[in-house]
C-alpha cells in the first residue's frame, strides 16, 4: 500500500498553512514556548515509543547508535 498522493497533498497544504515566514520578535515567542510546541512534550513517553519502533523495525534513525542497545527480539 502506498500513501495516496491526494492525501499527501492535503497534508502538505495543511502544514504549509503554518509556513509563512516572518521574523519573530523576542516578545512574540510565547506560542513557541508552549508545552505542546516542544519537540517532545513527554520525553519519557517518546523514549519508550521510539525504543519500541527501534526494536521492531529494521532501519536507521532510531538505530542503536549510542543509546545502549538491547537484545530486543
Amino acid at each position, binding site marked *: 500500500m502506498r500513501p495516496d498522493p491526494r492525501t499527501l497533498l492535503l497534508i502538505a497544504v495543511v502544514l504549509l498553512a503554518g509556513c509563512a515566514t516572518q521574523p519573530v520578535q523576542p516578545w512574540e515567542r510565547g*506560542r513557541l514556548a508552549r508545552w505542546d510546541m516542544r519537540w517532545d512534550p513527554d520525553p519519557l513517553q517518546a523514549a519508550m515509543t521510539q525504543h519500541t519502533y527501534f526494536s521492531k523495525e529494521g532501519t536507521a534513525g532510531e538505530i542503536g547508535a549510542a543509546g545502549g542497545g538491547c537484545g530486543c527480539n
Partner: protein
Amino acid sequence: MRWRARLAAAILAAAAVGTALAVEPGAPAPAFRLPALDSHEQVGLADYRGRVVLVDFWASWCGPCRQSLPLYDQLRAGFPATDFAILAINLDEEAADAKAFLREHPVKYTTLQNPQGDIAKAFGLSGMPSSYLIDRDGIVRQRHVGFEPADVDALKREITTLIGQPAHAS
C-alpha cells in the same frame, strides 16, 4: 536653554518610538500609557516622573521571570515608594496567562498589559525578560536583558545612586 533640551528630548523620544532602535542608556525613555492588567485603568510612565522607575518587560512563558518577579517585589519594598517604583509591562498574548502566573508569583507593584508589543518595540527589546532603569528625569540609565538572581544586588546599588540624584526642575 532648558526649552531646547526639552525639545531635543521630545524629538528623540518620538524618534525612538518610531524607529524601534534599542534604547541606549542616556536616552529618554519612550513615553507610554497602558491599561493595568487588573483594573484596566490607564497608567503612563509620565505619571512617575520625579521618581526612579524600573520598567520590567515580562511574560508568563519566560522562565527567568519565575525568579525575577518575587525578587523585584522585595526590591520595591526595600525603598520608599516616593523615591522608587516598579512598572511591569506584561507581553502575554492572553491576559489570562499573565493573571495565572501572578497568582503563583504575586507582586504588589503595578503591572500593565501590552499584548500588541508596540511598547516593547519602542524600547527596542532584544530579549526576554528586559528591564530598564529610569532616573527621576525620565532618562534610561541602565538596560538589562535576561535575569539572574545575582543581578539584584547591582540593581540595588544603582537604584540607591539614582535616588541620591535629585530631579532637575522642569
